[in-house]
């Protein structure tokens, strides 16, 4: 049911992600980010727990994605699997599985996750998130 797509932005890239639950929505947003950077490689990996907190749901999403980006950038890894356990207005918790990178990443370098055009909203049964990343 969940999914993600990139949307148009003049200089940067927008990510739209959705899911039946907040957790699924966050997972899809993460997949969307990794799709841009090319850091997602389905495989066996070592689990890393991630826990973030923010002043509201939208900033929790920014913090969550920033954390994934930070790991990707500093540990020279690809992300093989991920799972978001819990999300609420002030927290998100989950894990990513990582494996050492074998070569350079094949995607677009993402500098950071922005607060621009940021939204995390529920309509009917679907949670949808929109955000823009700086490339």
């Amino acid at each position, binding site marked *: 049911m969940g999914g993600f797509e990139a949307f148009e932005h*003049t200089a940067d890239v927008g990510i739209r992600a959705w899911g039946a639950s907040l957790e699924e929505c966050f997972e899809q947003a993460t997949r969307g980010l990794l799709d841009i950077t090319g850091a997602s490689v389905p495989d066996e990996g070592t689990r890393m727990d991630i826990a973030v907190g923010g002043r509201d749901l939208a900033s929790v999403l920014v913090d969550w994605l920033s954390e994934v980006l930070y790991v990707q950038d500093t540990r020279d890894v690809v992300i093989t699997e991920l799972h978001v356990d819990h999300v609420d207005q002030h927290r998100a918790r989950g894990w990513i599985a990582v494996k050492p990178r074998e070569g350079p990443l094949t995607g677009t370098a993402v500098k950071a996750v922005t607060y621009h055009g940021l939204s995390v909203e529920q309509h009917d049964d679907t949670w949808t998130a929109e955000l823009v990343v700086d490339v």
Partner: protein
Amino acid sequence: MELDQVGPFEWEIPVGYVSGMRVPGRVFGSRSLVSKALQDRAVEQVANVATLPGIVRASLAMPDIHWGYGFPIGGVAATDADGDGTISPGGVGFDIGCGVRLVRSDLDWNETKPRIRDLVNMLSERVPRGVGGKGRMKLDAGGVDATLREGVLAPMAAGVGWEEDAEFCEDSGRLPDAKPDLVSDRAKERGAPQLGSLGAGNHFLEIQVVDQIRDREAADAMDLFDGQVCVMIHSGSRGIGHQTCQDYVRDFDRLMPELGIEVPDRQLACAPLTHELAQRYLGAMDAAGNFARANRHVLMDAARESFADVFGRPSRDMGMFVVYDISHNLAKLEEYEVDGARRQLCVHRKGATRAFGPGHPEIPDRYSKIGQPVIIPGSMGTASFVLVGTKEAEHRSFSSTCHGAGRAMSRTQAKKQMSGQDLKRQLADQGILVSAGQAKLLSEEAPYAYKDVSEVVESCEGAGLTKVVARLRPVGVIKG
């Protein structure tokens, strides 16, 4: 809503264009450039910036303006540092201190042309680039702090570059109020392995040829001549800047409800300059700005070395001196006359370049008569320009001008038009050798994805902000 034309290259966004504007907006540009800005809603972002508390006179937009994230790219906003002015990290951007360095040489194109392929190959090997590229210069924790504190003086102390290089950088290569302690460990971790790496996206190292001189006196002062081979480097503070901005936007965002300030875009989060967080950001921003300058300095060293290897002569003997090094993503505290009194303003320049005029005390003596050099990188495959600042810019744009061509279409659209391989071939046919880290992403940076840089610089000249000195065309391009 229409924009009022208030000068041949100046348009006003009236207060009320969006709600909460404290001052009008001012867009510099030709009619056609400004209508492009209206089309991609960048004008709305200019108006949003006008809601910042303490903003002085107007929210400005350069002719290369385009839609950004919060602040438009090509935006200038000055807030009253002596009063209730605020600072907004989004007004500087993630790539803190991103900018351009121009290096001259004594070589002309005729003698260089036979060796261009060797040069491009040598540079491809020597210049780290792309995602996760490890920098040329390894840094330990002490080295990171030294670079954050000392800017270009840090690699220079390690024997990289020449003594005279520093003078020809803004702030003599070192922002003195930098505070490395205010940069997070996480940012330092990201940045430590990246000193002397190009990055990706629109960053580049180019071999260029001066193909037009417009202002002979200024060109002479800069030691530029027709047919001369130069090297231009466009790069920034890498992961250290990105993380620092991310860290501080987060802190500013958290503070906003407490401050009772409301902004139309969350990325415009701001705080009064007198607030402790604002002061901390300034120290961290300057540190990241120093890293960016040091980065370009180390990349320049790769270029000097490559030329020396290919031509079998020391680069110094080939006159490879720095013309100037500018930043186009930075906030500076500068003094301007406002309503008849001298006031200290915090000038945010996001995708805009400082452009001091002749006689300004902060520019090298060598350029005192002509004004501060401004380096305008074109997009890949098109011309770059060297300009000089004017006295007029002081009261027109807080001594600011454009930064480049500005994007005209999204990356997805650009990729659809042409494949990276086809573009590379097309550029080769035009006599431009491109070495790209990732060919498939090349078309995102294609010339057609950008506005016409010559129209942009002509508009800046028409508006009295800067004057064109010379045009340079690329012959070899190294991209991430």
